[in-house]
């Protein structure tokens, strides 16, 4: 806990130092240094105590409402893990990218504030995970929510960036409003603000309108985590933000939404039956729509953003399983669902952080992250390519990486629920498993597309052909995260039991069967690990054999066989639009693809253009019109301020008369 405090202070120092040094080169060293040091100390604080320990500190706090109560329990620690790991990696990566030669369009004087807000984001995230009081949590939450607005708008001379930053700000605030309502209503109903006191009050007295509170929490935290239909800010914000910020947002900040939902479920106590099913359904809908839209994207960062939506959906599914399990008394399902959710969040943070940082390197090297501009980068940026492939393998949930382990735990939780009493629960669970499988299949397609089109084949533009690898400083965080991922793959069972600590601390669970279920799941991961080991060993063996055989019989290098076509160019390669065409034929609506074919008239058109775009349909069809309707209504109502003073007097007169007639 002391170390945790030190890390907060380091963040604060980094923030203020960077702000004070605005305009000097040193800002780009002090800011990242603060973030790095704070993260490393924080990491030490997470590991310095046993995983199951819980601590609580109430510090003096100057406000008449709430308390400055901070504490670390297993759930906090686990959700802090991505914050610290990514905080360290992104600080280094950001220092490299903002200090490098790529930043000519970013005014020098903007780095001080940038690092200020980066440190503030880390500070806010740490406080969110540690807050044990509603008011304190809200303050931390808002600080955490506001900082990214400034981080996203680093390159605010581009109109898309401004637009994205604004969308982010609005989404974050609307979510926060729901949370304010949630905590205020909770506070008003119980009269206390401390988390422990709230939980006790909720357990003792039947909370009035608990379902409404749950709905508010789901909306508020869902807006942060990017659950459908509140995900619209993600695909806008991530491409606009600098990559180290995207990595931070996607890996750590949106996880805070899941964390918040976790806390809300803890606080609300005994769940109504529909909560778990609502979470399950929402999670699956989010995951499916997220991955389908990810598949449709032609911009790597947008693709990654939608993939984050998908993964948060899976985490929500885990929480839903936990809820259903707790409510039906199925401890196995509850423990595995909750542990699976945390496990998945951890995995996602590592993979997505790595992928976004790789995307950032691509952006620096090529100047674009649109798949139509990339290709063949694997040979030009070998480390980045390898890291991206590794991340893609992991995020698609393929063995032998721990992404598979996470999904397996979720699947085990579902499987333990297929003998629930009643037809509907069973059908629901089966549907969930099938949906999980579909998500896995589409994730594979999406990341095959991302990795394959960006890093393999021939470069599609001269910029991609001339891409130059980044410096060592920029590669260090990639390798660090890749190392984390490999370690996680090797120690997946241990990671699960770590995640299990959070599940065991969840109130309302019988620890003994839950512990047994977790132990069994760890065994299963062990066995699965054997198979994974088999895969690695066999691959190596086959590769060894292959190299022996080829040295014996010789290799000839030729051009790619063109199937008889003699003038191939890099433009005839399969592109982002064509790659998803078979899927789009069936699933155009959920993928949100729209295509336009412009062709000259006549039988032999000289020119034809096919444009395939994938705007967010929900934003296009729902939110934008909604905002327009509100704006138009307000405009129409503005006639009351017409500028004629005598009518203003009429308002006053009418008010008096009406009040007198009404009240007397």
């Amino acid at each position: 806990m002391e170390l945790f405090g030190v890390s907060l202070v380091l963040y604060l120092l980094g923030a203020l130092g960077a702000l004070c040094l605005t305009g000097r080169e040193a800002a780009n060293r002090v800011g990242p240094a603060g973030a790095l040091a704070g993260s490393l100390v924080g990491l030490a604080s997470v590991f310095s105590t046993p995983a199951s320990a819980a601590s609580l500190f109430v510090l003096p706090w100057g406000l008449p409402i709430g308390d400055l109560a901070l504490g670390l329990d297993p759930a906090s620690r686990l959700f802090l893990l991505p914050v610290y790991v990514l905080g360290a990696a992104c600080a280094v990566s950001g220092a490299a990218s903002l200090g490098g030669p790529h930043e000519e369009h970013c005014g020098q004087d903007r780095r001080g504030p940038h690092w200020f807000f980066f440190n503030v984001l880390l500070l806010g995230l740490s406080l969110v995970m540690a807050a044990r009081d509603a008011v304190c949590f809200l303050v931390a939450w808002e600080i955490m929510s506001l900082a990214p607005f400034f981080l996203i708008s680093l390159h605010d001379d581009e109109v898309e960036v401004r637009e994205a930053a604004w969308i982010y700000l609005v989404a974050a605030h609307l979510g926060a409003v729901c949370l304010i309502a949630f905590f205020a209503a909770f506070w008003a109903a119980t009269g206390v603000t401390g988390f422990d006191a709230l939980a006790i009050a909720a357990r003792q007295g039947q909370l009035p309108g608990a379902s409404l509170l749950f709905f508010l929490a789901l909306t508020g935290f869902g807006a942060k985590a990017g659950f459908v239909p509140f995900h619209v800010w993600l695909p806008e914000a991530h491409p606009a933000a600098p990559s180290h910020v995207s990595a931070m947002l996607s890996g750590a900040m949106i996880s805070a939404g899941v964390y918040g939902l976790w806390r809300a479920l803890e606080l609300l106590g005994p769940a109504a039956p529909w909560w778990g099913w609502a979470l399950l359904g929402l999670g699956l809908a989010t995951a499916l729509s997220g991955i389908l839209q990810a598949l449709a994207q032609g911009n790597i960062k947008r693709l990654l953003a939608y993939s984050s939506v998908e993964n948060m959906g899976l985490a929500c599914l885990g929480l839903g399983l936990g809820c259903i399990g707790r409510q039906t008394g199925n401890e196995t399902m509850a423990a595995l669902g909750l542990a699976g959710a945390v496990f998945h969040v951890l995995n996602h943070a590592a993979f997505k952080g790595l992928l976004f940082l790789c995307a950032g390197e691509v952006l620096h090297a090529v100047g674009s992250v649109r798949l139509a501009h990339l290709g063949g980068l694997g040979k030009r940026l070998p480390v980045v390519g390898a890291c991206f492939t590794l991340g893609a393998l992991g995020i698609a949930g393929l063995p032998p990486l721990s992404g598979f382990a996470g999904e397996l735990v979720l699947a085990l939780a579902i499987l333990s629920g297929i003998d629930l009493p009643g037809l509907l629960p069973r059908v629901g669970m089966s549907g969930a498993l099938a949906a999980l499988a579909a998500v896995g299949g589409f994730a594979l397609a999406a990341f095959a597309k991302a990795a394959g089109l960006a890093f393999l084949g021939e470069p599609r533009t001269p910029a991609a052909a001339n891409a130059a690898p980044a410096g060592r400083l920029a590669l260090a965080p990639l390798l660090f995260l890749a190392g984390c991922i490999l370690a996680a793959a090797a120690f997946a069972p241990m990671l699960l039991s770590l995640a299990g600590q959070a599940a065991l601390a969840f109130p309302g669970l019988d620890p003994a069967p839950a512990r047994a279920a977790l132990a069994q799941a760890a065994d299963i991961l062990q066995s699965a690990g054997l198979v994974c080991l088999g895969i690695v060993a066999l691959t190596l063996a086959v590769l060894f054999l292959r190299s022996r055989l080829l040295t014996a019989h010789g290799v000839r290098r030729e051009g790619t066989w063109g199937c008889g076509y003699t003038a191939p160019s890099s433009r005839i390669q399969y592109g982002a639009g064509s790659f998803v065409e078979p899927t789009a034929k069936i699933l155009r609506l959920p993928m949100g693809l729209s295509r336009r074919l412009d062709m000259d008239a006549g039988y032999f058109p000289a020119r034809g253009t096919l444009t395939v775009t994938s705007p967010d349909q929900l934003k296009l069809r729902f939110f934008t019109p909604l905002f327009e309707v509100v704006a138009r209504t307000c405009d129409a109502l503005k006639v009351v301020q017409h500028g004629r003073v005598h009518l203003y007097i009429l308002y006053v007169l009418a008010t008096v008369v009406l009040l007198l007639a009404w009240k007397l």
Partner: protein
Amino acid sequence: MELFESVLVALICVNLAYLAFTRLRTLARLTAVQGILLAWVPLLCAGPGDHGHALLLALAVLAIKGIGFPWLLARTLSRLEVNPVIEPYLGFNLSLVAGVAGLLFSLWLETRLPFPPGLFPPLLFPAALTSIFTGLTLVVARHKALTQVIGYLAAENGIFLLGTPLSGQGSVWLELSVLLDVFVAVFVMGIALHHISKTFESIDVGRFCSLRD
């Protein structure tokens, strides 16, 4: 007491007349009539004890409301060379209807309030409220800044009327405030009118609608 009631009825009539006349000069004269009528009120409703106070008040009202202000209005009128015809937003007949509605509303209001015995002479409360409502109707329903000032003054007169029975209660603040209000109406609005006419070559505040949403 009959005299008092006839003064009040006369005040109500003057109020309605405000709404019915079409020339600014007539309105200015009406304010003089109202001021003179109003000057009677403190005298008539004063108790036996404090005639001196009431006389002082009556004189002050006569000087300010009966003479000073109408004179100022007339002077402004002749100086500014405004179009002497009032342009209404709300037609004269409709304005009259509004005035009568104000009267009826005041009478209704009187039934809703328990009157402390001996404080208000009969008819004073509705007369005062009618004056306020017609004054504000004049502000609402007419174009020119001058009519708005006149309407505002009529409303002030109503408030003064309502306040007079309380003047015997020992506090001078009430009277002072009424007088201060008149001061505002005359001087501040007079200054503003001066600027308006200088800037716009007219005191038609109907053109004042450039600030809006």
